[in-house]
């Protein structure tokens, strides 16, 4: 029997990017807020100091900062007629854990979606006709427009201090920036990072072939910066330990470096760590949440009553929280009815690896988000007529590190061990680097999330089950993008080039990205969405999922964090300016 705690205005499940942004905005508005986080408290000086943060084995291989599968994992299968088995060790995607969440270990790549991405189905049907889209593709328009979200992108980028070069300021093209991006209300908060040799060579080659390379928008800061919350970030040192690592240098934007020092100054905000929310509690009508129940490390259960419940866990676990709490109708792929778990999507990545002749690339001088990119083949930036697929992605030279356990390339055909391997590793490391494409993953009727019938977590709750595979549209897209990238790469006259377009089936055994999207989709129609345009549950009006990537109706050809952060601010404004005045459905 759970013991009951004093009521709060707001309870937040999970203290990562969205939880800390919502916590700050609502505590600032005077509400009494508690955030319940199942992982540990984490702070730069204690948990990832430069004295030992750059430890590939501990953080990059043994995954010290990540969620442990024995706390929570998923089961996985490619197709509905297979038996899902547990992901016993995370590899393909790596959910975060603890205060800061995925905001600690991300690379800092800070992309906006395209204006046409927000009305994807309408746009594609208008331009190409309905027959262009496969019958089982369940993409849909977002319930808000690019023009509506733009100010919130701007706010999140200013929170982060993102480094980059604008390509479009209020409709005026800017030389050196991304000519395809949606309009921006202002220049990036800090100038672009410096570029290494590999990215510079790529940009020269791309420019010669008529493309428009630009520096990747990076929340690894090119210079010191004070954000609007008054918190100062330091200049990035290009150490090459971003993804999978905490930044010991206060240079990578994260809840720790951008929000928490200011948030923890509010006396009306409390964080409760090492405490896992078991479920969201509903009243007798099932239309209003009364709070949450959580369990601490001793196994003791606590009930935290609250007027507003914010679901701010990692995307996948937002979906599971709603399924376990009975909020929204679970999706059934047989009938196409139901919404929770529907439109799970991912990311379709590929690579072109190069070994150059007689070059010294110093590939270890890197950040998580530097590099030179082109956006010519993203979204609908190019004519898809006759190509047989829709969508695309950005591509370019953005190698994030050359940490040697995972990065010791050798020429094709080299033995995997022994004298020849050793010689090849020594002769190749300085000359090799990889280019990548970062493509969309549109949603399909047979890709979804539900509760597993067999496997349970440590608390006896069913694990979530993922049913997912790549579809022809995405595989064709990846082949096309990888060909375009290889064309540019060939201009560098490499000694060796290996193009690796994404192939099916999807496997959980190769790292691809941690961009898991959908399952609690936001939309204009309750029949095809879990949340309305303010990220508010259609069914339980005081439950919000404020912008985790689980709200994406499909995934586009960009990294998700900028959109996640923007939607967090969007939802915070809606709660503060609309919901508090008149608690009830906002749509």
């Amino acid at each position, binding site marked *: 029997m759970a013991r009951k705690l004093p009521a709060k205005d707001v309870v937040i499940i999970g203290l990562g990017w969205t939880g800390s942004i919502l916590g700050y905005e609502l505590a600032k508005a005077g509400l009494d807020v508690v955030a319940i986080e199942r992982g540990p*408290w984490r*702070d730069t000086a*204690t948990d990832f100091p430069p*004295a*030992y943060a*750059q*430890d*590939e084995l*501990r953080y990059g*291989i043994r995954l010290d900062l990540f969620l*442990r599968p*024995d706390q929570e*994992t998923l089961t*996985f299968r*490619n197709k509905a007629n*297979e*038996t899902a*088995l*547990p*992901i*016993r*060790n995370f590899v393909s995607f790596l959910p975060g854990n603890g205060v800061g969440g995925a905001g600690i270990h991300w690379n800092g790549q800070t992309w906006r979606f395209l204006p046409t991405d927000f009305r994807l189905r309408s746009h594609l049907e208008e331009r190409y006709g309905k027959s262009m889209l496969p019958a089982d593709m369940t993409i849909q328009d977002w319930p808000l427009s690019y023009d509506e979200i733009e100010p919130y992108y701007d706010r999140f980028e200013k929170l982060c201090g993102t480094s980059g070069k604008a390509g479009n300021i209020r409709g005026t093209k800017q030389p050196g920036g991304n000519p395809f991006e949606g309009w921006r209300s202002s220049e990036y908060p800090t100038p672009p990072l*410096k570029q*290494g040799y590999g990215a510079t060579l790529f940009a020269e080659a791309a420019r010669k072939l008529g493309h428009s390379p630009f520096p990747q928008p990076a929340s690894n800061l090119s210079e010191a910066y004070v954000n609007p919350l008054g918190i100062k970030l330091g200049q990035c040192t*290009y*150490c090459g330990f971003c993804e999978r690592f905490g930044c010991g240098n206060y240079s990578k934007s994260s809840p720790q470096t951008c929000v928490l020092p200011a948030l*923890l*100054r509010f*006396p009306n905000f409390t*964080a*409760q*760590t*090492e*405490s896992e929310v078991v479920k969201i509690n509903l009243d007798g009508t099932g239309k209003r949440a009364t709070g949450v129940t959580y369990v601490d*490390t*001793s196994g*003791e259960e606590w009930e935290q009553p609250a007027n507003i419940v914010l679901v701010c866990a990692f995307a996948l676990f937002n979906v599971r929280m709603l399924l376990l709490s009975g909020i929204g109708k679970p999706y059934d792929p047989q009938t196409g009815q139901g919404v929770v778990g529907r439109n799970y999507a991912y990311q379709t990545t590929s690579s072109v690896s190069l070994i150059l002749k007689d070059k*010294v690339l*110093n590939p*270890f*001088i890197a950040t998580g988000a530097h590099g030179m990119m082109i956006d010519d083949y993203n979204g609908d930036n190019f004519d898809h007529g006759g190509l047989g697929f829709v969508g695309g992605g950005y591509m370019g030279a953005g190698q994030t590190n050359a940490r*040697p*356990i995972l990065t*010791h390339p050798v020429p094709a055909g080299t033995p*995997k*061990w*022994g*004298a020849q391997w*050793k010689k090849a*590793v*020594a002769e190749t*490391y*300085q000359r090799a680097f990889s280019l990548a494409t970062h493509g969309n993953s549109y949603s399909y009727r047979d890709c979804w999330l539900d509760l597993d019938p*067999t496997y*349970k977590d440590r608390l006896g709750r069913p694990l979530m089950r993922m049913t997912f595979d790549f579809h022809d549209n995405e595989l064709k897209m990846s082949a096309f993008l990888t060909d375009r990238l290889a064309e540019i790469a060939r201009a560098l006259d490499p000694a060796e080039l290996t193009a690796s377009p994404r192939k099916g*089936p*999807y*496997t*959980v*055994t190769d790292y691809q990205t941690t961009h898991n999207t959908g399952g609690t989709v936001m939309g204009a129609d309750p029949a095809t969405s879990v949340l309305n345009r303010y990220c508010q549950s259609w069914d339980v009006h005081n439950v919000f999922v404020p912008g985790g990537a689980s709200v994406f109706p499909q995934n586009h050809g960009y990294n998700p964090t900028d959109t996640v952060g923007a939607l967090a601010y969007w939802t915070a404004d809606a709660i503060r300016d609309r919901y508090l005045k008149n608690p009830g459905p906002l749509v």
Partner: protein
Amino acid sequence: MTDALFQARISRRALLSSTAVGLLASTTAARALTVNQGLPWSPGTARPPVPVRPGPWMFFTADEASLVEAAVDRLIPRDDRGPGGKDAGCAVFIDRQLAGPYGRSDGLYMRPPFMPGAATQGYQMPDTPAARYRAGLKALAEHIKGAFGGRSFAQLSPQDQDKVLAGLESGSIALAGVDGAQFFGLLLQNTQEGFFADPIYGGNRDMAGWKLIGFPGTRYDYRDWVERHNQPYPLPPVGIMGRSDWGMK
């Protein structure tokens, strides 16, 4: 606002009856923490890595260690570029890893039922890395004993050692009760981890792996070299504990 006004106040809730504390506290590393009115900080809460010290084997028996040391020295042989896997400490690295959380599969999802699955679903067996080494090394030693007239792996010529390893890799050597190719894959992966991980974990001794390829280790600040394109980075590698020559002048 002064820091004094916003001193961190951390209260570890007295959540439990004394009985429950007695039963559970020793098995629980972390405890629920309530944080408000300032960032928490308290001394002694960082978790720096614990350096591996030379000394007796912690996981391997003497026979197992002799086999592993000989094997890692063929997977990464000594040549004019530098030491092989044995002198680089790869076997020590593997030994200490197997004696620790990695060897026990700590943190992995180890609940039944265990069922064979598709390759896309990942490793589904219940055995830990420690158990896989124990069984794999035993089966390998027995195979060699039978195939090479009672000799051990370490007693074979380098050419024969390579033949055994290649046979494991390709699956042409069948081990009793053990998937030889899978075991070879694990041994190779751990050997390379040991060769390239920070020396603090017992491998990559004298930063042999990093020197081989030109990785500067944990230097953390390359601002002055980002735009010096096509010029080799001039400084030697450094590890979490520094460099051995720092203390030898």
